[in-house]
């Protein structure tokens, strides 16, 4: 087991801040580019952008260790980039090409990486929650101390199977962290119109699962909450719930006109709570880096994203024979 970190006075170094800035900006720029490619018809079907929620995955990945697992629903591009998957492979999956993580057969909602312990990318709201508990079960069965981050949204938090899973996870003390990304809208339905009690972090109390609400727009707050939850799980004390209060700037998917909220509401959050601007301010105020250095990071990321977009356009469509492969694993 890793040495226990003290969470009282988190020591956030200059390097940490710059890394978080970089990681969040990578997701933001990736998603903007994905939106653009969608607009050009290069990406089809459903495409759910993560813009606004970047601090959640970057903060938790900063707390995770090698071998920890993660699984999420379909707003998943950010999770993949944050755990180190290659932007080229992710973007090429979005364009449905051979060079994508699933050879073009999964698309935006279905990508996986065994190497990075990323278990998808699932399209059915709530269905990844028991799957995540199952991954945690496999680690406990083997007797190691890995944890599984199981991400889902405020919409999924009302699904029945989530509570079936809470019960089993608590009963069997599974090392699973349930991360509720509360972006306040279940597709187009505001939380107060769909959810009887707004405090989602208390949803485990009937099962004895501790939970806390976290400012999901503050990457350091997210990281520190993540460390606390990880310590709880690694100590064998069972599951933990983190409710991340966050916000998505774009519509639910590309074809969402987002008429259920005002432009002013979105603009206000962007101006006052943006997770990337927040870290940027911390960097500049703490004199950890100057504007020029940040500009260099921006430029560097733009290069990575353009390279990913080029790859995603140039990679060929999968061979027609791929239609018939990967239906069964060879016995």
């Amino acid at each position, binding site marked *: 087991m890793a040495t226990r970190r003290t969470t009282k006075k988190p020591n956030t170094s200059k390097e940490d801040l710059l890394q978080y800035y970089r990681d969040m900006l990578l997701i933001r720029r990736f998603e903007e580019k994905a939106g653009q490619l969608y607009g050009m018809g290069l990406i089809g079907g459903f495409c759910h952008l993560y813009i606004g929620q970047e601090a959640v995955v970057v903060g938790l990945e900063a707390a995770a260790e090698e071998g920890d697992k993660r699984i999420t629903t379909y707003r998943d591009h950010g999770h993949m980039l944050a755990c180190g998957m290659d932007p080229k492979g992710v973007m090429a999956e979005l364009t449905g090409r051979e060079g994508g993580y699933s050879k073009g057969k999964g698309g935006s909602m279905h990508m996986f990486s065994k190497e990075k312990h990323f278990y998808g990318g699932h399209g059915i709201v709530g269905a990844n929650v028991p799957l995540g508990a199952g991954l945690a079960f496999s680690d406990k069965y083997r007797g190691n101390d890995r944890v599984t981050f199981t991400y889902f949204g405020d919409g999924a938090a009302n699904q029945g199977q989530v509570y079936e899973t809470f019960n089993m996870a608590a009963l069997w003390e599974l090392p699973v962290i349930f991360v509720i990304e509360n972006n306040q809208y279940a597709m187009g339905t505001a939380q107060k119109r769909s959810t009887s009690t707004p405090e989602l972090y208390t949803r485990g109390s009937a099962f004895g699962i501790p939970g806390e609400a976290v400012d999901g727009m503050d990457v350091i707050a997210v990281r520190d909450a993540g460390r606390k939850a990880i310590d709880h799980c690694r100590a064998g004390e069972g599951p933990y719930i983190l409710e991340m209060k966050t916000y998505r700037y774009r519509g639910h998917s590309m074809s969402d006109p987002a008429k259920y909220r005002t432009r002013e509401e979105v603009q206000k959050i962007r101006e006052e709570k943006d997770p990337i601007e927040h870290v940027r301010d911390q960097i500049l105020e703490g004199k950890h880096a100057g504007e020029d250095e940040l500009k260099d990071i921006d430029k560097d990321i733009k290069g990575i994203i353009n390279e990913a977009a080029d790859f995603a356009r140039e990679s060929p469509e999968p061979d027609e024979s791929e239609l018939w492969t990967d239906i*069964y694993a060879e016995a």
Partner: protein
Amino acid sequence: MATEILMPALSPTMEEGTLAKWLVKEGDEVKSGDILAEIETDKATMEFEAVDEGTIGRILVSEGTEGVAVNTPIAVLVEEGESADDVAASAAPEAEPETAPEKTDAAAPTKPAQAPAPAAPAPQADLEPEIPEGTEMKSTAVREAIRDAMAEEMRRADEVFVMGEEVAEYQGAYKVTQGLLDEFGARRVIDTPITEHGFAGLGVGAAFGGLRPIVEFMTFNFAMQAMDQIVNSAAKTLYMSGGQMGCPLVFRGPNGAAARVAAQHSQDYAAWYSHIPGLKVVQPYSAADFKGLLKTAIRDPNPVIFLENEILYGRSFDVPQVDDLTVPFGKARVWREGADVTIVSFGIGMTYALEAADELAQQGIEAEVVDLRTLRPLDYDTVIASVQKTNRCVTVEEGFPVCSIGNHLAAYIMQNAFDYLDAPVLNCTGKDVPMPYAANLEKLALTSTKEVIDAVRQVTYTA
């Protein structure tokens, strides 16, 4: 570098739209996330955001313009010190994504899956001697055969474990897991709460994590609560992951009608699961096949639906006493040879098929009885070879008649052995009604030996 801003596709089906309103004007500075315009798609009015930062150099399409095709340049964005005229040279290649995937017409008929044609000349159906002569046989009940298979595989590999309702301390609702808790302990024999959806999903997750779960449903009727996890999570993930993430798991439990338990507890799901690519589906009849096929299922790297039957649990069959009895998937078994008609069945349907064959023999009709054993993969070759010999076929199952396994076989035989048929293929199935409780009605709702005999007499024109 000046860039063109293109008319975006804002829904999966949008090909053109109306530029309803510009929210910026020439000379405005914009940054990523600023709203540039409102665009009416085929579905709704959408806000269109800037991706790059710069100054709006020129607006190319005025507001109110209808029918603007996707990817038409609608404005030019310039950087400091640039003119909108620079765009012509610099951004032109962006305008036409020549590698854009072809649009497919959703209404166009998809190419039918090509069923593998049987090799011609088709192999002879034979009573294959799977077990060497002289092997010691032991009369074993089906439930013990299943238990023995699980115990042997759990001894073989630590990753194999069993979970389900009442599998541990209660020793199995139907006593199928009897003794497993004593031998393997609570780590590997796990009682679950009564939450099929949740524990099926948890089992699938454990399989993603590299374990080999055996998930018992107390009956498959309750697996309908877990259908999404079985179909969407277990069966499709290998494909969706481009072959990276498999799901080595067995879902097993009793399936089909038991006795007097009415509509919600009496249903045969063979055809339901056989519909799904990515699943393997097994429905044995004899104890030896239950044992050998379950061992194969546990070792298989794919999700396997293993359909048992409560009435068969107590029935005993000879089971060969060999060290490691396995039976391959996709291989039917010919229980009895005959030249006059082929009767194809599986699972408990075999009891009607074999009884009917015995009675028919007394009437001078020799039936060949084929036990499919596995429904996915299905041994088409053996069926076709037998039909080529007998020229007639009757199928037998307890499931509902519409879209049944028998329907599928009839279509397959028609497509692949049409010229050999001397009569239409007939399907004996359960009736097209929910299972009634009353004893007499229940009997009527299921198929029967008499129905099989009548069908055979029809196709042999001896009715």
